[in-house]
Protein backbone atom coordinates (compact mmCIF):
# COMPACT_ATOMS: atom_id res chain seq x y z
CA UNK A 1 0.00 0.00 0.00
CA UNK A 2 1.32 3.39 -0.96
CA UNK A 3 2.50 5.50 1.94
CA UNK A 4 3.42 8.95 0.57
CA UNK A 5 5.55 11.07 2.85
CA UNK A 6 6.93 14.62 3.00
CA UNK A 7 10.25 14.80 4.82
CA UNK A 8 12.34 17.80 5.83
CA UNK A 9 15.80 17.43 4.25
CA UNK A 10 18.97 18.82 5.78
CA UNK A 11 18.53 21.80 8.06
CA UNK A 12 16.04 24.65 7.76
CA UNK A 13 17.72 27.96 7.01
CA UNK A 14 16.79 31.01 9.00
CA UNK A 15 18.81 34.01 7.85
CA UNK A 16 20.62 35.79 10.63
CA UNK A 17 21.43 39.44 11.21
CA UNK A 18 23.23 41.07 8.32
CA UNK A 19 21.47 38.89 5.76
CA UNK A 20 22.93 36.65 3.07
CA UNK A 21 23.10 36.95 -0.70
CA UNK A 22 23.05 33.26 -1.52
CA UNK A 23 21.39 30.16 -0.05
CA UNK A 24 22.31 26.67 -1.24
CA UNK A 25 21.01 23.20 -0.54
CA UNK A 26 23.82 20.89 -1.65
CA UNK A 27 24.35 17.12 -1.74
CA UNK A 28 20.61 16.62 -2.08
CA UNK A 29 19.80 12.93 -1.50
CA UNK A 30 18.61 11.09 -4.61
CA UNK A 31 16.18 8.94 -2.66
CA UNK A 32 12.92 10.87 -3.01
CA UNK A 33 10.41 11.19 -5.84
CA UNK A 34 9.97 14.97 -5.84
CA UNK A 35 11.42 17.99 -4.06
CA UNK A 36 9.61 20.97 -2.55
CA UNK A 37 11.23 24.18 -1.37
CA UNK A 38 9.20 26.60 0.71
CA UNK A 39 10.59 30.08 1.17
CA UNK A 40 9.50 33.06 3.21
CA UNK A 41 11.80 35.87 2.17
CA UNK A 42 12.37 39.57 1.95
CA UNK A 43 15.16 41.33 0.06
CA UNK A 44 17.18 44.31 1.20
CA UNK A 45 16.97 45.95 -2.26
CA UNK A 46 14.51 48.65 -3.23
CA UNK A 47 12.86 47.29 -6.36
CA UNK A 48 9.11 47.03 -6.72
CA UNK A 49 9.64 44.18 -6.76
CA UNK A 50 13.06 42.56 -6.78
CA UNK A 51 13.32 38.90 -7.73
CA UNK A 52 14.54 35.69 -6.13
CA UNK A 53 16.20 33.48 -8.69
CA UNK A 54 17.52 29.94 -8.66
CA UNK A 55 20.38 28.01 -10.11
CA UNK A 56 20.34 24.23 -10.29
CA UNK A 57 23.61 22.31 -9.98
CA UNK A 58 25.29 25.70 -10.28
CA UNK A 59 23.65 26.51 -13.62
CA UNK A 60 21.46 29.46 -14.52
CA UNK A 61 21.31 28.41 -18.18
CA UNK A 62 18.69 26.56 -20.21
CA UNK A 63 15.73 27.81 -18.21
CA UNK A 64 12.45 28.83 -19.82
CA UNK A 65 9.20 29.69 -18.16
CA UNK A 66 5.67 30.89 -18.65
CA UNK A 67 3.86 32.84 -15.99
CA UNK A 68 0.58 34.46 -15.18
CA UNK A 69 0.50 37.31 -12.73
CA UNK A 70 -2.16 39.23 -10.90
CA UNK A 71 -1.15 42.52 -9.40
CA UNK A 72 -2.88 45.57 -8.07
CA UNK A 73 -2.56 47.18 -11.49
CA UNK A 74 -4.26 44.31 -13.33
CA UNK A 75 -3.02 41.06 -14.77
CA UNK A 76 -0.45 39.95 -17.27
CA UNK A 77 1.33 36.89 -18.52
CA UNK A 78 4.56 36.13 -20.28
CA UNK A 79 7.02 33.61 -21.59
CA UNK A 80 10.75 34.03 -21.14
CA UNK A 81 14.01 32.22 -21.71
CA UNK A 82 15.97 33.64 -18.81
CA UNK A 83 16.74 32.52 -15.29
CA UNK A 84 13.58 31.90 -13.28
CA UNK A 85 13.02 34.84 -10.95
CA UNK A 86 9.67 35.21 -9.21
CA UNK A 87 9.03 38.52 -7.42
CA UNK A 88 9.93 39.05 -3.78
CA UNK A 89 9.29 41.64 -1.09
CA UNK A 90 11.81 44.46 -0.75
CA UNK A 91 12.31 47.54 1.35
CA UNK A 92 9.60 49.19 -0.77
CA UNK A 93 7.01 46.72 0.51
CA UNK A 94 5.07 46.91 3.76
CA UNK A 95 7.51 46.81 6.68
CA UNK A 96 8.28 43.46 8.24
CA UNK A 97 6.36 41.47 5.64
CA UNK A 98 7.80 38.53 3.76
CA UNK A 99 6.66 36.96 0.52
CA UNK A 100 5.92 33.25 0.34
CA UNK A 101 6.85 30.92 -2.47
CA UNK A 102 6.62 27.20 -3.09
CA UNK A 103 8.93 25.59 -5.65
CA UNK A 104 7.96 22.06 -6.73
CA UNK A 105 10.50 19.88 -8.56
CA UNK A 106 8.88 16.61 -9.73
CA UNK A 107 11.02 13.62 -10.69
CA UNK A 108 14.22 15.47 -9.86
CA UNK A 109 16.44 12.41 -10.26
CA UNK A 110 15.21 11.47 -13.74
CA UNK A 111 17.19 11.85 -16.94
CA UNK A 112 14.40 13.93 -18.49
CA UNK A 113 14.32 17.72 -18.57
CA UNK A 114 13.10 19.08 -15.24
CA UNK A 115 9.83 20.93 -14.87
CA UNK A 116 9.39 23.34 -11.98
CA UNK A 117 6.07 24.67 -10.71
CA UNK A 118 6.17 27.85 -8.65
CA UNK A 119 3.48 29.72 -6.80
CA UNK A 120 4.36 33.02 -5.27
CA UNK A 121 2.64 35.75 -3.26
CA UNK A 122 4.32 38.96 -2.22
CA UNK A 123 2.95 40.98 0.69
CA UNK A 124 2.30 44.64 0.19
CA UNK A 125 -0.43 46.90 1.50
CA UNK A 126 0.80 50.24 0.19
CA UNK A 127 1.40 49.85 -3.56
CA UNK A 128 1.73 47.14 -6.16
CA UNK A 129 1.43 43.59 -4.92
CA UNK A 130 2.07 40.43 -6.94
CA UNK A 131 0.56 36.96 -7.16
CA UNK A 132 2.39 34.76 -9.64
CA UNK A 133 2.19 31.23 -11.00
CA UNK A 134 5.16 29.95 -12.99
CA UNK A 135 5.52 26.87 -15.17
CA UNK A 136 9.25 26.53 -15.71
CA UNK A 137 11.51 24.06 -17.48
CA UNK A 138 15.19 23.42 -16.95
CA UNK A 139 16.34 21.79 -20.19
CA UNK A 140 18.99 19.62 -18.64
CA UNK A 141 18.92 15.85 -18.12
CA UNK A 142 21.13 15.82 -15.01
CA UNK A 143 19.67 14.82 -11.68
CA UNK A 144 19.22 17.76 -9.35
CA UNK A 145 21.88 17.63 -6.64
CA UNK A 146 21.96 21.27 -5.53
CA UNK A 147 19.67 24.28 -5.61
CA UNK A 148 20.84 27.84 -4.97
CA UNK A 149 18.64 30.87 -4.36
CA UNK A 150 19.94 34.35 -5.10
CA UNK A 151 18.23 37.74 -4.76
CA UNK A 152 18.43 40.02 -7.79
CA UNK A 153 19.65 42.81 -5.53
CA UNK A 154 21.14 43.01 -2.06
CA UNK A 155 20.58 40.31 0.54
CA UNK A 156 17.87 38.10 1.90
CA UNK A 157 17.16 39.89 5.15
CA UNK A 158 17.17 38.49 8.67
CA UNK A 159 14.38 35.99 9.43
CA UNK A 160 14.01 34.94 5.80
CA UNK A 161 13.52 31.17 5.81
CA UNK A 162 14.17 28.30 3.41
CA UNK A 163 12.92 24.72 3.87
CA UNK A 164 13.67 21.79 1.57
CA UNK A 165 11.39 18.74 1.64
CA UNK A 166 11.54 15.40 -0.10
CA UNK A 167 8.32 13.81 -1.33
CA UNK A 168 8.12 10.05 -1.54
CA UNK A 169 5.13 8.62 -3.35
CA UNK A 170 5.55 5.01 -2.32
Amino acid at each position, binding site marked *: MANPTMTLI*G*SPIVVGSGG*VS*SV*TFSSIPQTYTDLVVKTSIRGSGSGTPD*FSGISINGSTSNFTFKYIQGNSG*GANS*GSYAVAVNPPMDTSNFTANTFDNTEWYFPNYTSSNYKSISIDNATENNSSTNYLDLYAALWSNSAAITSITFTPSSG*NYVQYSTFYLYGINNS
Partner: protein
Amino acid sequence: MADTPQAIEVNCETGVVTTRDLTPDEIAAQAVAAQAAADQRAAAEAEAAKVAADKAAAQAKLAALGLTADEIAALSK
Protein backbone atom coordinates in the same frame (compact mmCIF):
# COMPACT_ATOMS: atom_id res chain seq x y z
CA MET B 1 34.73 49.19 3.04
CA ALA B 2 31.62 47.22 2.20
CA ASP B 3 31.24 43.78 3.71
CA THR B 4 31.76 40.85 1.37
CA PRO B 5 28.42 39.22 0.54
CA GLN B 6 27.77 36.05 2.49
CA ALA B 7 26.46 32.68 1.39
CA ILE B 8 24.80 29.94 3.40
CA GLU B 9 25.10 26.34 2.30
CA VAL B 10 23.36 23.33 3.80
CA ASN B 11 24.91 19.95 3.08
CA CYS B 12 21.77 17.85 2.93
CA GLU B 13 23.64 14.60 3.58
CA THR B 14 25.30 15.78 6.76
CA GLY B 15 23.00 18.61 7.84
CA VAL B 16 26.04 20.83 8.29
CA VAL B 17 25.35 24.52 7.66
CA THR B 18 28.27 26.61 6.38
CA THR B 19 28.39 30.38 6.12
CA ARG B 20 31.15 31.85 3.97
CA ASP B 21 32.08 34.82 1.81
CA LEU B 22 30.99 34.68 -1.82
CA THR B 23 33.82 34.12 -4.29
CA PRO B 24 34.53 36.74 -6.98
CA ASP B 25 33.05 34.36 -9.58
CA GLU B 26 29.89 34.00 -7.52
CA ILE B 27 29.61 37.76 -7.10
CA ALA B 28 29.98 38.16 -10.88
CA ALA B 29 27.36 35.48 -11.50
CA GLN B 30 25.04 37.26 -9.14
CA ALA B 31 25.43 40.44 -11.18
CA VAL B 32 24.53 38.52 -14.33
CA ALA B 33 21.45 37.09 -12.62
CA ALA B 34 20.47 40.56 -11.47
CA GLN B 35 20.69 41.85 -15.01
CA ALA B 36 18.58 38.93 -16.24
CA ALA B 37 15.99 39.78 -13.62
CA ALA B 38 16.03 43.41 -14.64
CA ASP B 39 15.62 42.42 -18.30
CA GLN B 40 12.73 40.16 -17.36
CA ARG B 41 11.07 42.91 -15.43
CA ALA B 42 11.52 45.43 -18.24
CA ALA B 43 10.09 42.98 -20.78
CA ALA B 44 7.09 42.23 -18.56
CA GLU B 45 6.38 45.90 -17.98
CA ALA B 46 6.70 46.71 -21.68
CA GLU B 47 4.38 43.86 -22.59
CA ALA B 48 1.81 44.93 -19.98
CA ALA B 49 1.98 48.53 -21.18
CA LYS B 50 1.42 47.46 -24.80
CA VAL B 51 -1.57 45.31 -23.84
CA ALA B 52 -3.06 48.20 -21.86
CA ALA B 53 -2.52 50.63 -24.74
CA ASP B 54 -4.02 48.20 -27.27
CA LYS B 55 -7.01 47.65 -25.01
CA ALA B 56 -7.61 51.37 -24.58
CA ALA B 57 -7.34 51.93 -28.34
CA ALA B 58 -9.77 49.11 -29.05
CA GLN B 59 -12.26 50.46 -26.52
CA ALA B 60 -12.02 53.92 -28.04
CA LYS B 61 -12.73 52.52 -31.51
CA LEU B 62 -15.72 50.56 -30.21
CA ALA B 63 -17.06 53.68 -28.50
CA ALA B 64 -16.66 55.58 -31.76
CA LEU B 65 -18.83 52.94 -33.39
CA GLY B 66 -21.58 53.71 -30.88
CA LEU B 67 -21.16 50.96 -28.27
CA THR B 68 -21.93 51.96 -24.70
CA ALA B 69 -19.39 51.49 -21.90
CA ASP B 70 -21.46 48.58 -20.54
CA GLU B 71 -21.54 46.93 -23.95
CA ILE B 72 -17.78 47.30 -24.32
CA ALA B 73 -17.20 45.89 -20.86
CA ALA B 74 -19.48 42.93 -21.63
CA LEU B 75 -17.18 41.88 -24.47
CA SER B 76 -14.42 40.97 -22.03
CA LYS B 77 -16.59 39.14 -19.48
